[in-house]
């Protein structure tokens, strides 16, 4: 799927994350997290997996996380992708 407009999902509460998506020529993912040191690579792997699953190949992806679990990351990112791609 192609990111055609700005979209956001999630909250700033503990154990949640905020996802911001924007159209872009290339794929650029930035992740900020209060637990980046411990779980940075795992968060990144999950984000890549979800993007791949939905065929997102380009876009500005910004994530600010407060220790969300895998399924929260997946749910928030999928929601943002739906919002960024729907007509």
């Amino acid at each position, binding site marked *: 799927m192609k990111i055609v407009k700005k979209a*956001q999902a999630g*909250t700033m509460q503990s154990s949640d994350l905020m996802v*911001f998506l924007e159209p872009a020529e290339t794929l650029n993912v930035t992740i*900020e997290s209060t637990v980046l040191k411990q779980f940075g690579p795992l968060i990144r792997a999950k984000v890549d997996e979800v993007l791949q699953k939905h065929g997102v190949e380009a876009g500005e992806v910004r994530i600010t996380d*407060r220790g969300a679990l895998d399924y929260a990351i997946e749910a928030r990112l999928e929601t943002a992708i739906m919002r960024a791609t729907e007509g």
Partner: protein
Amino acid sequence: MVTSLLSTDDLTQARALLEATGLQFETPYDDMVGIFEAGRLVAVGARQGRTLKMLAVAPSHQGGTLLDEVVTELVGRGYQEGVDSFFVFTSPALAPNFETLNFHLLAASGKTALLEYGDGLKRYLARFTRLVRPGNNGAIVANCNPFTLGHRYLVEQAAAAVDQLFLFVVREERSLFPFGARMRMVQDGTADLANVTVVDTSWYAISSITFPTYFLKDGDPGGAIQMELDLTLFAQRIAPHFYVKTRFVGSEPLCGTTAAYNEAMHRILPPLGIEVREIERKNADQQPISASRVRDMLLRGELEGIAELVPVSTLDFLLSSEGIKIWDKGGAR
């Protein structure tokens, strides 16, 4: 649930809550939201452009997630309206409350701390990494509205004294000449100087965030605190990335706000490891050359004298059809 605060009763409650927590109700704002419990407002927050303000939680409800909910709503709505980075001013003691929400401390000075949501500063600095060469570098921050022979003289003097000179052009759109035009005049007017690199300030120096009253000449006393934050941010976060050890500035005999800013530079930058070199203004006709003098002449239609105050590259722009459109509003000539 977070809701918009719109009615008179909402705003009365917001004012009372803010005052009860030691804050003030400050207009203007673009958006204001709050959380009610049994008809009573227990949390409030507002956004003005990129700045979040008037954030307060009733003492009886602190320690929970109400602040998180208010900030989430303000950031989510702001993002939908096209704002992509957010700032908050708070006291240094309260900064950790925002750091757990992924805000990052940009600068703290006295009773005020400035934090940014997200990694905007890091991305801003990364844009220039390729252009930076380690050395004894210098910086000038200027609006260049428009670029004059006074700017040119300051740049020449500074460039001769350092390895690489960074000329930061103010990004903010609060001036007669739009940023794109100012940037082009500066680039054209310094193209022959090999060790001068022209960059923009983004939101991180002399902007409506770091120094809002700069744009209101002879602004309010709050300006003093803002200057300190602006300069602390420059010295601690921006200068090191560019290996800048000296900040150059033209002497300011005319404008009160700018003169106060220069004075603040001498006071704040040297203790933070940045030398300040004030260079005497260049004169024309026994009067200092300044951009405001050029603007006044343009607006009065006195085109003859302008050639003595600006470089050929700026004059060419001012007299181009694009340039004329900017200063000749409604056929002043």
